């Protein structure tokens, strides 16, 4: 995955708190192969009515070219479904700005090059006010951890490990391969100190004992 340092794009305000993972992508779409694209599922039940027609008043239907979202507290809380991030990324979203995020969501985001930028409630209010009718062009700088909208520049918080990962576009599986010796040394010692932690039991034929014991 390619890393990135800064991004300028159209920001759209979603003036809602607690946009959870089940809103970001309803569970019924999650059996779809990723290759088919997940963008059309983003916020599906909020964007699309029960007859399957896009709701004209939804900010993302009015501005499908948006690449930045400004949302309320606790964005992405709930499920561990990475599909919530796939839906955002495939829709073209590069960054979400909010006062707080679900931890698992934020971790999944960084693994897909999506920034979850945490801002104070006061800055959330300032940025919301500065977005004219809820839209505006915004610049995000990962090096300085700053958001710029016109002459307003505000800081955002991001775990430094995640910041580096976004900038470098690191692939953890490749990184971890470099530590193969450390892993082998750990398990050798660990098997001796915590022998009970390893599974030696054969996978027995189905157990009919109703207590499971």
């Amino acid at each position, binding site marked *: 995955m390619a890393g990135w340092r800064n991004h300028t794009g159209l920001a759209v305000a979603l003036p809602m708190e607690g946009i959870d993972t089940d809103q970001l992508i309803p569970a019924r779409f999650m059996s779809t192969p990723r290759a088919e694209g997940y963008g059309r599922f983003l916020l599906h039940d909020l964007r699309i009515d*029960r007859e399957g027609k896009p709701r004209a008043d939804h900010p993302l239907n009015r501005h499908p070219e948006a690449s930045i979202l400004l949302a309320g507290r606790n964005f992405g*809380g709930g499920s561990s479904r990475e599909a919530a991030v796939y839906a955002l990324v495939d829709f073209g979203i590069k960054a979400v700005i909010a006062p707080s995020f679900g931890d698992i969501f934020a971790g999944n985001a960084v693994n897909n090059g999506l920034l979850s930028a945490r801002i104070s409630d006061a800055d959330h209010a300032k940025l919301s006010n500065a977005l004219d009718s809820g839209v505006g062009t915004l610049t995000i700088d990962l090096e300085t951890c700053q958001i710029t909208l016109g002459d307003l520049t505000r800081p955002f918080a991001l775990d430094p490990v995640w910041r580096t990962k976004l900038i470098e576009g690191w692939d953890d599986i490749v990184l971890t391969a470099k530590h193969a010796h450390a892993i082998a040394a750990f398990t050798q010692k660990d098997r001796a100190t915590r022998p009970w932690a390893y599974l030696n039991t054969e996978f027995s034929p189905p157990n009919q004992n109703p207590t499971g014991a």
Partner: protein
Amino acid sequence: MSGQTLFDRLWRSHEIFRRDDGASLLWVDRHLVHEGSHHAFGKLGMRGLKVANPDLTIAVSDHYVPTRERASGGTNDDIRRMIATLETNAKTHGIRHFGLNDPRQGIVHVTGPEQGLTLPGLMVVCGDSHTSTHGAFGAFAFGIGATEVAHVLATQTLWQTRPKTMRLTFNGVLADGVTAKDMALHWIAKLGSDGARGHAIEYAGSAVRALSMEARMTLCNLSIEGGAKCGMIAPDETTFAYLKSRPFAPSGPQWDEAVDDWQALQSDADAAFDREIEIDASDVAPTVTWGIVPEQAAAISDTVPANAPQDALEYMGLKAGQSLNGLPIDQVFIGSCTNARIEDLRAAAAVMAGHRAKVPGTVSPGSMIVKRLAEAEGLDRIFVDAGLDWVASGCSMCVAMNGDVVAPGKRCASTTNRNFRGRQGPGARTHLMSPAMVAAAAVTGELTDARPFLKDRPLAGAA
């Protein structure tokens, strides 16, 4: 070493390597996978990688499995494909699999502990946010996303930045008829759905110590609904008694050795936590959610708050100031990794025995083992005689991926974990509560305090 928290001990025993930037590579003791792992196995396949430790990887079919007509293999082609894909991936990589037709099949967070796969001192991960359940045993257990699942499959390790610690102490004694579900909804309502964000919770205090293993699992299960990284309870005799003789638990001399090690899994008296929260257990009442996030919860005797957000009121079809007690419901669901273990079914049956339900509903036990045990105790008859459907085990109507859904606009009293918009189906209105409270709602057709129903009634099925 003194001044250590339980979490410190768990972290230290799994840390392989720490980078200069603070990220640690951690060893994974148990990796649980379900049908949702298809993205991760796909990533592995694209790189031509094998599963590093198939012996520490356990597959369980739960999210998509049909709870009715199992022989169909799934309620539609798409669902059948999801179930078959896990079967194939498990076979290809030599992973133990509790599949659709295995008599031990169940919800992964019920099956793991039931089989003794979950133990104190382990690090347990799964591509499911309710993995926090396993913390009830004094394990470090949390949900991960698909990229992380692929990483664990490929390496049996995971990069993590250390979370902060928080101790949530419930002092005193719970009132009769108040459960672990109520404790969880109570603290989440108090601190918020993101109240424990970035923290590993240790639940402590006399009211936590007094909980059964199954109730501890309910409490830890809901840690994620308050935004926590994980939740855990230090192991004690209750933990050891539950685990002894479970199929995958250590046995013989190794059992004694393990218990010796597990007894050290405590927070020291002088351990410092980043946050300390204390709650008086006697303040906890039977609690129900009224809104669209778990923090929107209140005691059954309360009203919908005056400052309730408009979007929640609209979605739920409620008015600020309205009483929760007496709110008519359309159906009930008893199931999920939160509240479908045997004690949950006993609690619901104790309320329901001898009554007819006024609304339809479904009871899906947490595992097929729980189902058979409940049938041996006659609990199934109580539910069926009341007019509810008694079905096979799976995530079912909690996540509504297998075809079990609540219809648009319908109001469901549910023992599950999320009242998010559309969680139980598009337009579904979910009220979360304990199994006894759901049973009482079924009997009266409205939200109501279960406690009068429990007066002078023995727990059904309990010896």
